[in-house]
C-alpha cells in the first residue's frame, strides 16, 4: 500500500507528487472481491438467487437489452479510440496500480464481450479487435472490477469522446445481478430503502426517538426549542436526508445544522418516516426500475404530507438523482393544478395510473433543492446570520463530492455546486484553504467509497483509492495547518473518517458542512455558555 509518510518539513506541491503515474502491475487489486448478494436479497429484488446454468445466454441477452435501451452505453462502447487519455485519471488505478482499474480497461471488460458477441469485426476477427468470449473468468473480472469503480466520472472529464465509465460499470453490475451476482452491501440497501424507506431499515418509532433526543440535545445546548419534526402534515417543506445523518458521526451534526437553519428561517418543514432516505443506491447498481421504486417513496410521501417543496440533505448521489433524474423517474414534478401534466406540458412518466400524473412540487419550487442552496439563499437574504468566530481555530478545506461536482448543479448559476458550498463555508469559519486545483471542482477525486464501495470487504481498495485525495489534503495540512475537511456527502464523510488514518491524516476532522454552519449560526433567543 502506497501511503505517503507524514512529513515534518516543507511539503512539495502535491501536484508534483500524485502526478507520478504508477507503473502498471497486473493483478495488483485482483484479490479484493465483493461479497455476492445472498439468495434471499437477490430473489427479493427479482433476480435469480444464484448463477443459473444458462447464465451466459442471460447475461448476453441483458447486455443486448441495455445497449438497445441506452444511447450513452451504445455510443460509449462503440467510439472509444483507446487514446489512453483516461489511463492515469482514476483514483483506484493511481492507488492500486492494477491496469484493470484504468477506465478504458474497465470499459474493455464489457466492450470486449460486446464486440465478440454483437459486432461484425468481433464475431469474425476477435483476435484483431481485442474481442473476448464471455466465460467464467470474464464474469469474475466483471464482478471484481466493476466493484472497484465508484462511478465518479472523473475519467469522463478527460475523455475526448465524452465516454462515461460509470454507465459501463452500471451496465456491468446490472448484468451481474441478472445472473445471480449482485453485490450484497449495495443490493441489501436497495432492498431496505425500497421496502422500509431508508438504507438502515429504521422504522418510525426508532426515527422518532432519535429526533426527540436530538431536540433535547439542542435545547440543552442552546436554550432554543429547535424542532426536528417527523410526519408533520402542517409542514410545507419535506426534508429528505441520507439516513446516516440520523446517527453517524459527523453526519448527525450536519442534521442538527439543517434543523437550526430551518428553525431560524421560520420554515415549516418535516421529515417523513416513509421516505427517510435521500440516498438512492439503485443509481449504483444501475437498475432504473429500482431507482424509480426508491424515488417514488419520496414523491408519495410529499403527496401524503401535502408538502410543496423538497429539500435534499448532504448526500452526493442523492443530489445527483434528485437534481438530474427525478423528473424522468417520478415526474411530473410540478403540480399544475389540473393533475394531468407537469411543468413541461408533457404526459407523466410516472406510470399508467391516474394518480401518478399528479405533481408534488409547487410552482415556486419547481425542482428538488439542495440544503446548501436553501441555506445559502437564506444567508444571502439576511434571514440567517453566521458568525465565523464561533468556529475559532478552524482552518477548513472543502472536498467536492463527485456526484455533486460532475452529476448535478446547484443554485441557478453554472458551477453553483462548487461556489455555493464554498461561500457558505467561508461564511461559517474563519479560514478556508483550497486543495490543489487538479483535485477540486470538476476534477475532484472521489473519496474512494462511492457507488457501494463503502462495503467493509473492499477496505483495501478503499484505502488505496483515497490516495490522491489524501495527498492533496496532506499538502494543505502541512502548508496551512488545515484542521477540518468539510464535505456534503454521507459516503465521503464515512469513508474519510475510516481511511484517512491509514494515510497518517487521522488528525484532520471530517465535518459536515452544515455542522460548521450550524455551529456558526446565530439563533434567536439563544443562551450562550461562554457568551
Amino acid at each position, binding site marked *: 500500500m502506497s501511503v505517503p509518510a507524514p512529513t515534518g518539513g516543507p511539503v512539495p506541491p502535491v501536484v508534483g507528487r500524485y502526478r507520478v503515474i504508477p507503473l502498471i502491475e497486473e493483478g495488483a487489486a485482483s484479490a479484493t472481491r465483493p461479497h455476492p448478494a445472498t439468495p434471499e436479497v437477490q430473489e427479493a429484488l427479482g433476480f435469480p438467487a444464484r448463477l443459473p446454468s444458462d447464465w451466459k445466454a442471460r447475461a448476453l441477452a441483458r447486455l443486448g437489452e441495455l445497449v438497445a435501451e441506452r444511447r*450513452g452505453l451504445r455510443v460509449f462502447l462503440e467510439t472509444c479510440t483507446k487514446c489512453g*487519455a*483516461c489511463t492515469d485519471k482514476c483514483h483506484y488505478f493511481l492507488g492500486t496500480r492494477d*491496469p484493470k482499474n484504468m477506465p478504458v480497461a474497465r470499459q474493455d471488460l464489457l466492450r470486449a464481450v460486446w464486440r465478440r458477441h454483437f459486432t461484425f469485426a468481433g464475431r469474425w476477427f476477435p483476435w484483431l479487435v481485442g474481442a473476448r468470449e464471455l466465460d467464467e473468468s470474464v464474469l469474475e473480472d466483471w464482478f471484481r472490477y466493476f466493484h472497484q469503480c465508484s462511478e465518479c466520472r472523473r475519467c*469522463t472529464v478527460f475523455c475526448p469522446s465524452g465516454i462515461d465509465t460509470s454507465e459501463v460499470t452500471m451496465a456491468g453490475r446490472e448484468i451481474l445481478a441478472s445472473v445471480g451476482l449482485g453485490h450484497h452491501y449495495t443490493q441489501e440497501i436497495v432492498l431496505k430503502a425500497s421496502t422500509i424507506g431508508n438504507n438502515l431499515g429504521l422504522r418510525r418509532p426508532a426515527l422518532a426517538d432519535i429526533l426527540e433526543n436530538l431536540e433535547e440535545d439542542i435545547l440543552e445546548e442552546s436554550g432554543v426549542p429547535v424542532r426536528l419534526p417527523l410526519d408533520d402534515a402542517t409542514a410545507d417543506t419535506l426534508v429528505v436526508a441520507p439516513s446516516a445523518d440520523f446517527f453517524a458521526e459527523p453526519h448527525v451534526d450536519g442534521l442538527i445544522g439543517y434543523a437550526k437553519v430551518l428553525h431560524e428561517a421560520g420554515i415549516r418543514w418535516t421529515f417523513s418516516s416513509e421516505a427517510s432516505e435521500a440516498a438512492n443506491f439503485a443509481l449504483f447498481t444501475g437498475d432504473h426500475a429500482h431507482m424509480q421504486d426508491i424515488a417514488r417513496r419520496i414523491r408519495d410521501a410529499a403527496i401524503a404530507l401535502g408538502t410543496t417543496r423538497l429539500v435534499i440533505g448532504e448526500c452526493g448521489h442523492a443530489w445527483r438523482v434528485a437534481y438530474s433524474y427525478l423528473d424522468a423517474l417520478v415526474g411530473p414534478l410540478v403540480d399544475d393544478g389540473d393533475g394531468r401534466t407537469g411543468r413541461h406540458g408533457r404526459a407523466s412518466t410516472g406510470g399508467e395510473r391516474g394518480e401518478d400524473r399528479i405533481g408534488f412540487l409547487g*410552482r415556486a419550487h419547481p425542482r428538488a433543492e439542495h440544503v446548501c442552496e436553501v441555506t445559502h439563499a437564506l444567508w444571502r437574504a439576511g434571514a440567517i446570520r453566521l458568525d465565523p468566530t464561533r468556529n475559532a481555530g478552524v482552518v477548513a478545506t472543502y472536498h467536492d463530492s463527485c456526484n455533486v461536482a460532475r452529476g448535478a448543479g446547484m443554485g*441557478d448559476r453554472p458551477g453553483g455546486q462548487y461556489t455555493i458550498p464554498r461561500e457558505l463555508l467561508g461564511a461559517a469559519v474563519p479560514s478556508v484553504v483550497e486543495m490543489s486545483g487538479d483535485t477540486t471542482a470538476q476534477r475532484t477525486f472521489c473519496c474512494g467509497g462511492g457507488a457501494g464501495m463503502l462495503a467493509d470487504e473492499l477496505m483495501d481498495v478503499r484505502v488505496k483509492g483515497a490516495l490522491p485525495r489524501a495527498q492533496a489534503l496532506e499538502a494543505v495540512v502541512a502548508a496551512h495547518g488545515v484542521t477540518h475537511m468539510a464535505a456534503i456527502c454521507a459516503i465521503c464523510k464515512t469513508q474519510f473518517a475510516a481511511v484517512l488514518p491509514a494515510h497518517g491524516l487521522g488528525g484532520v476532522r471530517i465535518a459536515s458542512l452544515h455542522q460548521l454552519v450550524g455551529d456558526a449560526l446565530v439563533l434567536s433567543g439563544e443562551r450562550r455558555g461562554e457568551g
Partner: protein
Amino acid sequence: MDALSAAFALALTLALGTFLLGTLARVVLWIRTPSPVPIPLAPAPRTRAGVAGRLALELLAFRSLARASLATWLPALLFHYGLLFVLVVHLRFLHPLLPPWLVPFLSLSGWATLALVAGLLTLFARRVLIARVRRVSAPSDYLHLVLLLAIALTGAALARRWPTDLHSVGAFLRGVLTFHWQPLPPHAGLLAHLVGVLVLLLVFPISKLMHAPGIAFAPTFHQRDPNAGAAGRGEGASGTGEKRGDAPSRARRR
C-alpha cells in the same frame, strides 16, 4: 475500358456506398436509441447555444484531450487537421480545372502532409512506448494507424516523387461519382493509395473510427443541464429533443 479500371471503379463505388450508408445507419441507430435519464457531464450548458459551444470545443479543439495530456493532444491535433487539409486539397479532383480558391491550399499541402504523418507517427510511438496505452491496445488499434500512414505516404509519394497523370485520376474519380466510369492510370503507387482508401472506407462504419460522429452523440456532451429553465425561465428542461422523458423501462428479467 480495361478490367482493372472497371474493378477499381466498382470497388470504389461499393466502398463509398458502404461508408455513407453504414455511417448513416449507425448514426440513425444512435438517434433512435433512447436516453432514459439525463447524464450530461456537469457543469452542463443551460442553452442550446451553450451545447453547440461545448460540442464545437470538443470537435474542433479536442478540449477534453487537452485537459488530459498535451502530449497526446498535440499529435492528435496535427494529425486530424493535417488530414482535413489534405482532404480539402483532394477537392481538386472534383473539377477538371483547378478552382482558384484551392491554389493556396495546394501550395501548403506539403506541410499538411508533414503534420499528418508526424501526428500519426507520434500517436503510433506512444501506443508502443507507453505501457498503459500498450496494455489497452488491440492489433486493430495499431493497424488503423498503419493504414492511415500507408495512405498518407503513398499519397505524398504520388504528389511529389512518383507522379501519375492527375487529370486522368480526376476523370476517374468524377466518373465513379457520376456512374460514368473512366479509365484509371495503371500506376502501382496510385493503386496502392486507392486500395488503402477502399479499406478505410469499408472499415470506418464498423470500427472505432466512428468516434468522429460519435462525439456529437455522447449524452455527456450534448445534453443540457437537466434543470435549465426549471426556475421559470420558460425553457423546457427536457427540450433536448431526445427521448430522455421516456419512462425508464421496467427491467425484463429471467
